């Protein structure tokens, strides 16, 4: 056997790390989106859902999930930066003329879309989770309590989302970031399956179809919230 260090550093192994963590993040996004869409069922459902997440397994579930996500995210970004740097170094002299056949804007700018998503995620956490930016809309502040049907008093997440998206700056940043996320996923999903070697001649067309479907689906799904708020459909 080769030393584990050799294997760990190898390009294909790092690709596996990136693909597995990327797919974990995709699964998380789908769960996150499903939760967000509860906004269309009204304040009671959304706030009750937010509360149950914080209460699950006596409050430990949310920390387990956060820990897992953090590890996945850090590994994903780590392998992405490592491989992108190696790939840049692999062609020191560029072509004067290029004429791409199959690669796309999205596939050639994964590192850029990824880094912008990273910046967005930090901002997003500071906004909705920690309340350090746009703190005037933070659901954890006094005066923003919501009383559930069963009498429990919880933070009014529903109000926070709606109040935030009534601010054009927040909505613009959000929608732009979701477009980037859609572009990232557009290439990422099929790429991950190919990296993991689960593709072959028969299922490749299906897998290549899945990327755009998930990319557009996730981006549109997340964007439906701010758009509905602006259109006055939820208030």
């Amino acid at each position, binding site marked *: 056997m080769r030393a584990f260090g050799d294997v760990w550093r*190898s*390009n294909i192994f790092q690709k596996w790390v990136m693909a597995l963590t990327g797919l974990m993040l995709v699964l998380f996004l789908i769960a996150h989106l499903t939760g967000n869409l509860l906004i269309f069922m009204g304040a009671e459902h959304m706030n009750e859902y937010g509360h149950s997440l914080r209460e699950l397994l006596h409050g430990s579930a949310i920390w387990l999930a956060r820990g897992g996500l953090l590890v996945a995210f850090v590994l994903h970004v780590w392998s992405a930066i490592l491989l992108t740097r190696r790939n840049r170094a*692999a*062609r020191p002299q560029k*072509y004067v003329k290029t004429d791409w*056949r199959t690669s796309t804007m999205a596939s050639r700018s994964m590192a850029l879309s990824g880094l912008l998503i990273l910046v967005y995620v930090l901002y997003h956490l500071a906004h909705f989770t920690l309340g350090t930016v746009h703190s005037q809309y933070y659901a954890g502040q006094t005066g923003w309590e919501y009383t559930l049907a069963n009498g429990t008093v919880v933070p009014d997440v529903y109000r926070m989302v709606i109040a935030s998206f009534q601010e054009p700056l927040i909505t613009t940043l959000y929608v732009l970031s979701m477009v980037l996320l859609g572009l990232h996923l557009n290439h990422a999903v099929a790429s991950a399956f*190919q990296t993991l070697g689960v593709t072959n*001649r028969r299922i490749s067309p299906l897998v290549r179809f899945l990327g755009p479907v998930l990319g557009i689906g996730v981006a549109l799904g997340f964007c439906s919230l701010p758009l509905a708020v602006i259109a006055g459909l939820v208030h």
Partner: protein
Amino acid sequence: MNLRLHIWRQAGPDATGMLKTYDVANVSEHMSFLEMLDVLNEDLIGKGEIPIAFDHDCREGICGTCGMVINGRPHGPVAKTTVCQLHMRTFKDGDEIYIEPWRARAFPVMRDLIVDRGSFDRIMQTGGFISVNTGNAQDGNTLPISKINADHAMDAAACIGCGACVAACPNSSAMLFTAAKVGHLGALPQGQTERSTRAMNMVLQMDVEGFGACTNHLECEAACPKGISVEFIAQMNRDYVASVFGGRD
């Protein structure tokens, strides 16, 4: 037809190169691309200039020696065609054509359009062979191989090692070439003994040579003159990780 060519000229491995412009007149549409360059070279020699260096051998699309990037596409605009089989009828009078060498850290330019593809040889030396004795020609028929496996192995064995996949890849990755070799031997019974160490060693050697990592743009498959499928890359990804976790050695 008359053409204007912009060709990469570089005197040696350490010299700085640049594109130089040449006008060629009266090019016949029946010429191959390399014959067109031959004509230009005759002309340069006649004028006492140094001819353009480019690699070529069989000129019938089977040896893998030729290769240059034409208007941003390795081996030129026609799919599944080596540059020696590319005919001038694909171009038209007045065209401007950019001709550059393969670009990769692992393929250093030796001179003009010639690059050193020794990195491919070194990848082959780490695992692109079998060590079992297969006997003489007639012994080949004593080992039955299913049509499916034989076809699959042949699809991979069609690789001529030209390096267009590396040249086409935005990451200069050698995955398609290496996967074709791993997939070829891995599809046959004779290749099973060393299957796991082969995948491991060839993959690690690719990294050592400084080829990039695959990000699945699929440019390699589109540029490959033999149409090697990226399906083999998926298979090598599986074989490599299998060898990490279950490999014997």
